[in-house]
């Protein structure tokens, strides 16, 4: 019980921290400090935060500010040119990119798994969920944890008769995008019903919470809760994580290695934008996504900002990648990082 309360407290603290916008506690930027402002996805926020802190140590002349407000809102700010860079797990559509006269360069920054987390007393991590079962849970068709369909997949577990409480994201989210895109790919019923998007109408009226941390908090506070959050966060705060059935029919637990496997089976095209809603491979984890930094192609209006931003992103793609695994993200393959660096160089100052 103490453990449960502690987890809830940690999650809640994370949530509160997540809700707090970065404040200007440092002295106001003088002439020699360049401020680069960005906003977007909550999915990679722990990693971006780490990058910003690490980068700041050697670069006192730059201050990178990142507001983790969700892919939906980050994309809007970026499209309205209110930030220097955006971040989104859903990248941008061609249509959105054409709308910007300065041009857009997508740069994959890292990748991560979207995990299904649950809170059922006595059931440890690794509950096996076949594809139709987790689709049916989110379609509100399976409503009890001891449903024969779940029980059959986990003969060695004794599942309690506990109602399933689905928790989803209420804000426009790239995590939702990756998750629903996967569901829509593996299930016709999902594709025709709720569909895929950053914000959807959840079947059966799921409980909604803000941000990855919000969903994690809600699941940890609700017995019988189930939700989807980014792997790093789920792992760090010790939520129980399900093993999902992949396309090859194997049950895979998310981890750096299985995520790597997923990425290997999904090449990136020239525009560096690719989704793999249902990846091939024997040991690929089924729900993973790249997350992108959204940059403008032309920073000639504020070359100073552009220069520092380029240097920072370049550092993230090279030196910064070593922080990925510790925080539960998937390190970019060297050839992809290389491609991204090349793309970065094409940005005009």
């Amino acid at each position, binding site marked *: 019980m103490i453990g449960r309360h502690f987890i*809830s407290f940690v999650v809640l603290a994370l949530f509160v921290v997540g809700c707090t916008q970065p404040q200007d506690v440092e002295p106001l930027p003088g002439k020699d400090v360049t401020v680069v402002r960005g906003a977007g996805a909550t999915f990679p926020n722990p990693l971006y935060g780490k990058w910003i802190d690490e980068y700041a140590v050697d670069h006192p002349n730059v201050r990178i500010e990142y507001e983790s*407000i*969700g892919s*939906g*809102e980050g994309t*809007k*700010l970026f*499209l*309205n040119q209110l930030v220097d860079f955006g971040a989104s797990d859903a990248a941008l559509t061609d249509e959105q990119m054409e709308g910007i006269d300065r041009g857009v360069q997508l740069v994959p920054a890292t990748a991560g798994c979207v995990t299904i987390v649950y809170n059922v007393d006595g059931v440890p991590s690794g509950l096996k969920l076949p594809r139709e079962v987790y689709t049916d849970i989110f379609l509100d068709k399976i409503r009890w944890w001891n449903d024969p369909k779940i029980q059959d997949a986990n003969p060695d577990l004794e599942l309690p008769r506990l*109602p399933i*409480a689905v928790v989803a994201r*209420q*804000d*426009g989210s790239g995590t939702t995008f990756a998750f629903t895109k996967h569901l829509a790919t593996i299930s016709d019923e999902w594709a025709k019903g709720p*569909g895929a*998007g*950053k*914000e*959807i*109408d*959840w079947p*059966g*009226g*799921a*409980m*909604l*919470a*803000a941000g990855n941390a919000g969903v994690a908090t*809600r699941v940890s*506070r*609700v*017995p*019988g*809760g189930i939700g989807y959050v980014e792997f790093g966060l789920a792992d760090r705060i010790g939520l129980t994580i399900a093993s999902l059935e992949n396309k090859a029919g194997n049950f895979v637990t998310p981890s750096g290695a299985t995520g790597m496997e997923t990425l290997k089976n999904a090449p990136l095209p020239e525009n560096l934008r690719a989704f793999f809603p249902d990846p091939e491979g024997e040991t690929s984890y089924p729900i993973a996504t790249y997350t992108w930094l959204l940059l403008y192609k032309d920073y000639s209006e504020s070359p100073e900002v552009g220069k520092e931003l380029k240097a920072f992103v370049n550092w993230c793609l090279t030196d910064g990648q070593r922080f990925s695994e510790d925080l539960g993200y998937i390190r970019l393959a060297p050839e992809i990082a290389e491609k991204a660096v090349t793309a970065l160089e094409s940005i005009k100052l």
Partner: protein
Amino acid sequence: MELETASEISRPPSAFQRTSDRVFRAVSLLFAWATILVVLYIVWEIGGQSVPALEQYGFGFLTGQTWDPNREQYGILPEIWGTMYSSLLALLIGTVFGVAVAIFLNEGYLGGATYGILKLFGVHLHPVYSRLPSALENLLKNLVELLAAIPSVVYGLWGIFVVIPLIRPACNWLHENMEWFPLFSTPLSGPGMLPASLVLAIMILPTIAAISRDALVAVPPKLREASYGLGATRWETLLAVILPTAAGGIFGAVVLAFGRALGETMALAMLVGNANRISVSLFSPGNTLAALLANNFAEAGGDETKVAVLMYAGLVLMAITLLVNMFGAFILQRSTAGLKGLN
């Protein structure tokens, strides 16, 4: 000195006094109008911004049940339902306790009991201890009113960490044994209508208690004395004379508290579960208009349709709250007007 003041009164007002008088009157009038104008401006602004949504969704917005930004389909019936459901439930609980507190404080129950205890020790005429009965009543009254000073978000946290774990076993027991009863038809997984309403009831308790107490104070002592004089017991006096006389004021208190419950945001956003569904069950999660606005405005940002839709929802909430408040003020006014003749 005395002569001077006396003569000042008898003198006609000087030019300065007359001017300052006029200026003061003008400034008062200005501020009074400014208040009204600010309200009108807010209504106008929100109304203006909601025009696109009004045109696009019209009346169907109030009866629709989907909230799907992806397909730009919006309806707020679940939120209207949730707002009314949680407020009425809170009102039911809050009224019972609030009126009880008001009676307890005003009808001398606490004072009487304290006096009895003091008398037992023979100190009821002591210069210090004899003040205890009224001091205790005062303390309790202030404590109840202090409930209104606790920030909404603290109530929300308290609800999450205390109320929900506390009531969950009982609620789930009810659900398992009486599932056929519509109010218990779903289990309580965590956030839901009942915990939200319980916390909301505590939040509106001070409003009900304070205004009900005022209504009870306004009951002329003559009536009470007459009732006792006719041989009625305390219980009979209370139920047959005092409460009916104060009923108008108490009803006004309830309606004002209803207005407050409708607009309460933060605690509900944390406790109601934010689920877009309509359910009669006490334990089902739901959503309210205020929580919907609080949760969605932060990231409505550049999406004009969504802003318009949220403004429309805000307008609906304002209309409901305004109607309820006007109704409450009207009742309150009627009831106090009726009592004037009795004094």
